């Protein structure tokens, strides 16, 4: 039944901004980096023995991690919940032969998949734009070195994990507030505050809205975190937030009366 609920979510996103948001959100950063490289390519000619792919990937990741992807998650979640609010469809969904928990997990699964696709697609675009740069400017040596596909894929998965905390909190807020404006405003403010605090606040490692940026910093060597079983502390915490807020959101979803 979860599979059918997931398919229903997919059907609902038909003719909406959601597929475009997934596509454009993943493309935006690689496209900006591509244009920067195109116009200022001489600045990016690598020193001998340096793999151009590493710098290009890190540039894209640092652009995406601070604001773009957290904002993307905030909008994605708000749009999905707003679809139901706008259609006044909660009451209809609750009288279908589908349990409330199935409806809940179907939605969360759909949102998580959307985010995963967005993250993986971003790294795919990085790969594609890098190849184009290699053809346009052979001096950048993109064609001399092979990109580490496995590493890119792992980076995209870990980037996705670092965003799960934000996703679950926004999901909880959107269900709680039954509104599109307030959760978006709250989310945007939390991202901005986190960006300010992360510069010097020692407890930022517990702030889920700072996790994507901390992941990017760790990747660039700006801040080193200890990895446990292949994942950083902030990635484990992001998963923990995801579990805790998803359970909270489910309790809310199941108990919520429909007026």
């Amino acid at each position: 039944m979860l599979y059918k609920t997931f398919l229903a979510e997919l059907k609902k996103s038909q003719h909406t901004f959601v597929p475009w948001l997934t596509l454009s959100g993943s493309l935006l950063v690689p496209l900006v980096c591509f244009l920067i490289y195109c116009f200022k390519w001489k600045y990016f000619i690598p020193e001998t023995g340096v793999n151009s792919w590493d710098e290009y990937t890190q540039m894209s990741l640092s652009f995406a991690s601070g604001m773009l992807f957290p904002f993307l998650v905030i909008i994605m979640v708000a749009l999905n919940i707003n679809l139901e609010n706008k259609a006044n469809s909660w009451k209809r969904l609750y009288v279908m032969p589908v349990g409330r928990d199935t409806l809940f997990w179907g939605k969360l699964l759909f949102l998580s998949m959307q985010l995963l696709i967005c993250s993986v697609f971003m790294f795919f675009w990085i790969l594609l734009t890098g190849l184009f740069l290699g053809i346009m400017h052979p001096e950048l040596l993109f064609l001399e070195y092979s990109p580490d596909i496995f590493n890119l894929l792992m980076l995209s998965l870990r980037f996705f994990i670092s965003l799960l905390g934000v996703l679950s909190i926004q999901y909880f807020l959107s269900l709680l507030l039954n509104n599109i404006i307030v959760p978006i405003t709250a989310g945007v403010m939390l991202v901005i505050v986190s960006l300010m605090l992360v510069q010097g606040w020692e407890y930022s490692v517990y702030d889920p809205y700072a996790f994507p940026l901390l992941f990017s910093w760790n990747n660039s060597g700006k801040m080193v975190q200890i990895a446990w079983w292949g994942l950083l502390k902030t990635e484990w915490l992001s998963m923990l937030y995801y579990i805790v807020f998803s359970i909270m959101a489910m309790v809310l979803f199941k108990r919520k009366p429909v007026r």
Partner: protein
Amino acid sequence: MITVRNLEFSYKKGDKTIDDLTFHVPHGSIYGFLGANGSGKTTTIRLMLGLCRAESGEIMIGGEQINRQSVEAFRKIGALIENPSIYGHLTGKENLQLHTLYYGLDRRQIMNALSMVGLRYVAEKKAGRYSLGMKQRLGLALCLLHNPSLLILDEPLNGLDPQGIAEIRALLLQMQREEGKTIFISSHLLSEIENTCDAICIIDKGKMLFSGKIEALRDSVIRKRVYKITSDRPEEAMQLIQPLVTSKITKDGNGCLIYIEDKEIIPDIISRLTEKNIRIYEVTGIENNLEELYLKLTNRL
């Protein structure tokens, strides 16, 4: 089919929205649920469907107690609650396709449901561009798609034009007669309830005022019945009848209206008039319509 017993619910503590409500909807009937705005009709429907949790009381549908865990029970219920829940960015057909996914139905049923409510010709049009009446019809199609044995319809005739009302009424009657469906319908269109329903329940401020057949309501509410006596000399007839009745007689065209409690007096009236050679063409009992009965029952008339 539906049994509601001693149902109580309040949105605010101490302010009962539903107060000791009890009624029974027989299997295969069309049951009307009447009440003024804010009387608790929609809240009762929400409670029946498990959308709100009752403070006390019992709701049984098809022998099963209904609550939020009654997932499978919803397979036999088609519900339309207030405004239909429609995704405006999807076409009418896509809205129904969505439901086939949730219900695990064959997609071939979609066009049947659309034909039943007369929306086949706009199946590919975005539902957001539908008129209010068309949205209401689509809401009905969503209810009928899984062929439920019980329909719970909250104001299903809202926004429909007279032709639409007649079509939906015919559809509901057909489903009751041919398929034996039980239909629970709340509406403020009293004449439609009167024309469609076998029995009714009237609530006011969350309390049940009446539950049963409309004829029983007439007997319980109306003490004086109205009769029209048509004759060749109405003015003279009025003067002759007046000493026989206690209430005032009024003239109505070529007849007069009399208000009496006991119809046993009618033969006496006829004898008195024929003795004076007044030719009586017709004696007709005028029935109070449901609107009058409703207003009298709720002390609004």
